[in-house]
């Protein structure tokens, strides 16, 4: 076999199936675009702000469908509320957790500076419910450190705080006192043995279990903001966990979390393809999962990973 034949055979065996799977995933995303420009979470579903933001991130990272991206950004802006929040539903203003996703989706597009600024102002003015922890409390984390909640008037949790911190960092607000406080909050919610879960470290004296997706997201948000030795056990936990893990949410955030700290696994792209392939078994992934895998595929090493790439992005309206 000549070198040329070998390269072609290798291409057909490895690269071509990857490309096909990748392009069919992007095509699935395109098909979820709605007439008004937004995206549904699944084919045939209704508009969802979070799905729309995720689709924008995935398509722009992959460098495709610029027309859809522009319309999707407009649909997010059209549904933004006066105070800057972006919600799951206009009937549920308390569900403002997609706001940082919208910031990430608008970032880099000059046409959306104004809605982006309003969303950032909303984040800076908003916090979860916080209080001074009582000595006899069942929980041990510092309940007074502010972050962001999933839903208004509830306690701050790891994922919305991490996403909001990422949104502030990529919009140049990483030095704001709220961003600094979010870093402290996340570090306080770190489990003593390493890793993060949704946001409780221990209850009634028992340390709770870490979760891969929360750990990956928190590490993505914190990259470059805290000394590596302070998150080493969390990175080790993440590294060990994702070796055998192929579920898209955990794998996607796991790869991005490690990558943000310069520890992206060598086989990350193979694992992402394995995860895409699992749709044959589980059915089509939702928009968030497809998009997250696309982002993880393209994520470059270093702080803020793929989101950092968007800082200087000017890919149209």
């Amino acid at each position: 076999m000549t070198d040329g034949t070998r390269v072609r055979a290798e291409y057909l065996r490895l690269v071509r199936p990857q490309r096909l799977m990748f392009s069919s995933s992007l095509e699935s995303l395109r098909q979820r675009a709605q007439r008004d420009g937004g995206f549904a979470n699944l084919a045939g579903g209704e508009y969802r702000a979070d799905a729309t933001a995720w689709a924008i991130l995935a398509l722009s990272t992959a460098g495709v469908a610029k027309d859809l991206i522009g319309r999707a950004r407009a649909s997010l802006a059209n549904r933004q509320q006066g105070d800057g929040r972006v919600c799951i539903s206009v009937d549920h203003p308390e569900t403002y957790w997609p706001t940082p996703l919208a910031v990430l989706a608008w970032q880099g597009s000059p046409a959306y500076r104004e809605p982006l600024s309003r969303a950032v102002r909303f984040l800076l003015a908003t916090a979860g419910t916080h209080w001074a922890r009582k000595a006899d409390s069942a929980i041990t984390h510092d309940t007074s450190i502010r972050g962001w909640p999933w839903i208004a008037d509830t306690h701050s949790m790891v994922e919305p705080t991490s996403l909001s911190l990422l949104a502030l960092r990529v919009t140049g607000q990483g030095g704001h006192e709220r961003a600094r406080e979010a870093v402290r909050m996340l570090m306080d919610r770190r489990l003593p043995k390493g890793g993060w879960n949704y946001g409780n470290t221990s209850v009634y004296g028992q340390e709770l279990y870490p979760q891969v997706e929360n750990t990956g997201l928190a590490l993505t948000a914190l990259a470059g903001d805290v000394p590596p030795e302070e998150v080493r056990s969390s990175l080790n936990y993440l590294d060990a966990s994702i070796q055998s893990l192929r579920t898209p949410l955990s794998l996607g955030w796991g790869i991005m979390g490690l990558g943000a700290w310069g520890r992206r696994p060598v086989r990350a792209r193979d694992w992402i393809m394995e995860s895409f392939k699992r749709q044959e078994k589980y059915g089509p992934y939702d928009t968030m999962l497809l998009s997250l895998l696309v982002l993880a595929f393209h994520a470059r090493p270093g702080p803020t990973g793929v989101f950092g790439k968007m800082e200087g992005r000017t890919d149209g309206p």
Partner: protein
Amino acid sequence: MGLDPRNRKRAWTRREFLRGAMAGGVLASSGMLLQACRGWPWGTETFIAKTAGYEGDIASVILAGFRELRVDPAEIRGKTVLLKPNLVEPHYGAGPINTHPLVVRGAAEAFLRFGASCVLVAEGPGHNRDTQLVLEESGLGEVLIEDRIPFVDLNYDEGYTIPNAGRWTDLAALTLPATLRRADWIVSLPKMKTHHWAGVTLSMKNLFGVMPGIYYGWPKNFLHWKGIERCILDINATVRPHFAIVDGIVGMEGDGPIMGTPRKAGVLVMGRNLPAVDATSARIMEVDPHKVAYLAAAGGQGPISEFRIRQRGESIASVRTDFALMENIPAQRGLRLS
């Protein structure tokens, strides 16, 4: 500690007053009147089956329960049945946190054998957003794929908003997942566990998992802020589930629902009325349901007094298993049956 029905959030109708009064025990002696008011023709029956392990024919046990509880195949034939197991978070080597997959399989098989046109499994895991991981590590994913049973992640389901029928919280309405509307029968399939916030978690508490995370957060944090016990009552009053099958083959005692230790009770407990099923399950755990705040207040939704629940199958005494309660956990303190 108890939930006083007088603290509900609006004026009562006469019917509601009767229900509320039941919770207070005011009319505890006039059982027939109350039964007529609530309209529970069979609701006061529960069935207990000794079930040594998960390897046996669980579907047959559940079918035997259907017969004892007078579930007519005509009620199931052609219907869509939604099974709601308890899937919180999975961890290899951790205790029995989730409803065992073979109980879900047995329930699906039983309903299909009774003529259900479709059985689907639906859950919105409370602690872990990676539902695929929860399915895989709990073992349920493989069972569902093998049996070709569809699964719906309720955390991301489209929502519909309806009035809160309970009004124990100040929530005027609840947003429920659209999949519930597709189901003719909603069946709660919980794990028998102690719980560090609610005392015990059984078929009523299990319905927390139907509330979509996109509207209520993770770990359904919004509901915690509104009061777990009040929310349990509101969700059950609004969803109005049709049946419950409690996986008490191996349950969890101590610091449940995650960090406790396995406790084998060797039972499945089932029935049409969830407060009655939970009261029976609590007694099996040697927990007094009258001391569990949300069960004590559940009078409007079903009976919890032992003399008002007709027991089928095994007696409670024959399967009683004292689940360890933690003195340092206020929600579990003083719950023991005296």
